[in-house]
């Protein structure tokens, strides 16, 4: 790598905030998806928005690609470095710049953790998007991935809460997209930026809307003989007009795994556990809670347990949140998927997943955000057994395609990144991908921002077609257009 580039990066970030040693860089070779690892040429940790601009400008001047990274907890390889490029780590930009409860807005830097926002506005307010990694994941990463979480069925996703962004574009210009206010004149470019997986620029300031914290919360878990039976209860709850704050489903394998870690005393022989949380005004909650309980009983729940206090509620949630890490107790390795299906197709898709798992001779645990049909199948395998990792990956891919065929999506909240880009053609046709590329080229005509992500095959940006202009040869009278 050009020595002058390194010198410019060093000048921008300071001597102690640049890594070029290959050994040190290994710390950044993967994000939360460890199957992929690439060591970048350099990693920088800028300490200000101005330093980010200087880094992006240096990369632009040298034609070097870059990848932005928040906390590195993403699960699609979206922050996977590129070998010839610079990794821009935003974890030092972790100031909450403004808490304005009068306007119900928070302005923060991208490295602030998700959980810090709710902490800053509590107890009267909260920030609803709550990915399971919220203790570590950063708001900048949430913006890149349009993160969801357990509460998004009722409250929506990151995109519903980001009102403004300060963005460094790949040409190193700084632009304000959106703001504190709603319906600003012009294109909804902050809406476009959220979920663009770091391919359109780097957000250096984020303005978020926060909302009043619910007056009260009640949580129950209902056990069913099968996920399909639990899924039926979900449909009936939603059809009754109840909008649970969260509604999560775990199957037998994931209950079993989580029990080994969280020990909530849930029946290990239950086919499924349905965790339902209602929040809202206390007066409404009692009636609604009773309604949900009777729907579960009518849907042949074998047992409904109500969390008696905050401590028991925490235990219920610990079971759900332990599902991913606990899988390590029952399987040496696992592969997480993030597909979405229309909720009404749940039973059919789950039985298809069972068939596919049986064919592959592997176990699949299912944990999902049942309200919005977002499945997280965990494909269990042993990497030490020759060929099993490949079989697991193939099975995971077949599950994704089964979900798309049922009218769903390849990813509900983890993003496309590198991991799912090969499935993009199962959801999108060539004109769709071409339109995506048009947008990307408008922001990043030179293709330096997070190259190799999202799109299934690498593409270059052509010249802006532009309105008809006279060719110089025409102007000189040397050629004529027919």
């Amino acid at each position, binding site marked *: 790598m050009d020595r002058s580039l390194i010198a410019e990066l060093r000048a921008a970030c300071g001597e102690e905030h640049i890594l070029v040693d290959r050994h040190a860089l290994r710390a950044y070779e993967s994000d939360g998806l460890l199957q992929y690892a690439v060591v970048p040429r350099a990693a920088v940790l800028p300490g200000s928005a101005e330093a980010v601009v200087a880094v992006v400008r240096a990369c632009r001047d040298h034609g070097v690609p870059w990848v932005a990274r928040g906390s590195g907890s993403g699960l699609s390889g979206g922050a996977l470095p590129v070998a010839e490029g610079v990794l821009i780590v935003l974890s030092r930009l972790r100031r909450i710049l403004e808490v304005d*409860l009068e*306007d*119900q807005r928070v302005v923060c830097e991208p490295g602030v953790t998700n959980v810090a926002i709710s902490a800053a506005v509590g107890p*009267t307010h909260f920030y609803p998007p709550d990915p399971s990694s919220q203790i570590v994941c950063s708001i900048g990463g949430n913006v890149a991935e*349009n993160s969801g979480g357990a509460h*998004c069925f009722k409250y*929506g*996703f990151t*995109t519903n809460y980001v009102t403004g962004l300060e963005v460094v*574009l790949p040409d190193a*210009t700084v*632009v*304000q*997209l959106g703001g*504190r*206010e*709603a*319906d600003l*004149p*012009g*294109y*909804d470019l902050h*809406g*476009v930026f959220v*979920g*663009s997986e770091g391919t359109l620029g780097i957000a250096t300031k984020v303005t978020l809307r926060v909302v*009043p914290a*619910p*007056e009260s919360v009640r949580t129950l878990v209902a056990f069913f003989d099968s996920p399909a039976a639990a899924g039926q209860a979900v449909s009936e709850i*939603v*059809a009754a007009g109840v*909008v649970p704050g969260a509604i999560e489903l775990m199957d037998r394998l994931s209950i079993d795994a989580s029990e080994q870690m969280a020990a909530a005393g849930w029946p290990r022989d239950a086919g499924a556990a349905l965790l339902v949380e209602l929040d809202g*005004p206390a*007066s*409404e909650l009692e009636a609604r809670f009773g309604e949900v309980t009777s729907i579960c009983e009518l849907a042949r729940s074998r047992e409904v347990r109500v969390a008696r206090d905050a401590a028991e509620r925490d235990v219920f949630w610990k079971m759900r949140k332990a599902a991913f890490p606990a899988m390590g107790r029952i399987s040496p390795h696992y592969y997480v998927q993030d597909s*979405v*299906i*229309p909720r*009404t197709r749940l039973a059919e898709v789950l039985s298809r997943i069972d068939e596919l798992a049986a064919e592959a001779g592997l176990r699949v645990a299912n944990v999902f955000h049942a309200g*919005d049909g*977002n499945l997280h199948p965990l494909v269990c395998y042993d990497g030490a057994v020759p060929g099993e990792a490949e079989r697991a990956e193939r099975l995971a891919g077949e599950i994704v395609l089964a979900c798309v065929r049922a009218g*769903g*999506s*390849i990813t*509900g909240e983890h993003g*496309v990144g590198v991991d799912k880009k090969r499935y993009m053609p199962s*959801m*999108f046709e060539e*004109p*769709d991908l*071409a*339109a995506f590329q*048009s947008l*990307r080229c*408008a*922001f990043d005509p030179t293709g330096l921002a997070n190259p190799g992500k999202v799109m299934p095959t690498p593409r270059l940006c052509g010249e*802006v*077609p*532009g309105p*008809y202009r006279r060719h110089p040869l025409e102007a000189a009278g040397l050629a004529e257009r027919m």
Partner: protein
Amino acid sequence: MASAAGLAVVTPATAEEAAAALRDAGPVRIRGGGTKGEWGRPVDGVAAELRTVWLGALVAHHAGDLTAVVQAGLPLREAQASFAAAGQRLALDPPDGGASGTGAGGADGATLGGVVATGDSGPLRHRFGAPRDLVLGVQVALPDGTVARAGSQVIKNVAGYDLAKLMAGACGTLGVICELTVRLHPLPEGWCTAVARGSDPRALAAAGSALARLPLEAEALDLRWEGDEGLVLARFAGRAAREHAAAAARALALDCDLVADDAPLWEGQRARQRGACVMRVSATQRRLGDVLAAARDEGATAVARVAFGLAWLRLPGGDPAGASPAADEALAAAVARLRERLAPSPCVLLSGSAALRAQVDPWGGIDAPRLALMRRVKERFDPAGRCNPGRYGEGL
């Protein structure tokens, strides 16, 4: 067929036909229900008017999934009637799209495509968001003659770029929205509104804001100002609506009524977002008192969505039939005064005579770096300027 302005009229019946028309028919003005045709700058040099009238089907209503696929030209009112038959609704209630309508524009009212393209919204914005927040997927005819889709048919999806957000509010300058997949919500069993009155705009806005900060789960929370008096309106839905409205009334500590038969009240809010000369102010909650005071001082009617700091001011003297240079001059002066007084809050002139909209920039200025980025997007999607050219300004 020719439009009122003597333009050729193109009426595609499929997205492919719409794309072919964009490619071949020269620059077009795009029209849905014709209720907001005047928003923004007048379009320049168009050869034809593209109408979505034959793209009017309800393609699918997946009641169990609370989603629907709707063609852009379907009047919102018709779509809502279909959803209501299944006990559901699209939680989007802009003017000209309600069950009774407000009579503006075409007889059928606003189309879903037009509502999304303009990013228009009504009181339900408070709880359910703007069109951008309810659109799951979009199919759009592009000026290069292709038809692209983005998003999906499920309520949670992050695959691909969110072109639906790009199209929502782009006022048809990047392509023609042909089909939309939307999220639906159950229709509540009943409503009740707490209505408080006040004669001090700032105290009224502060009372509204105090409610916005309580965990009440209102469906709508609005302000109104007319003459020398204003209202705070907090609407609650569901079986316990009355109880919740009563709690809001207690919290308001103002002279307060509970109104169960509240549909006319909210229809009144929507109606006040329309008029011959309406300005939309993107303020913040804490500035809404100033916005109401400014409306009062100008003799304007105002409605506001408290939690979003959004307000619509209907200026007096904007009579489209009797538009005269003198009236336009007075309105232009009023717009300028309001913009100066409410700065830096953007004030967008939504409706006004063509002469007025030529006289004052309807958008009120977009800062240079963002405008430059908008141009870059426009150049990629519509390099030859075929879609509503000039709506956002020269070359946009």
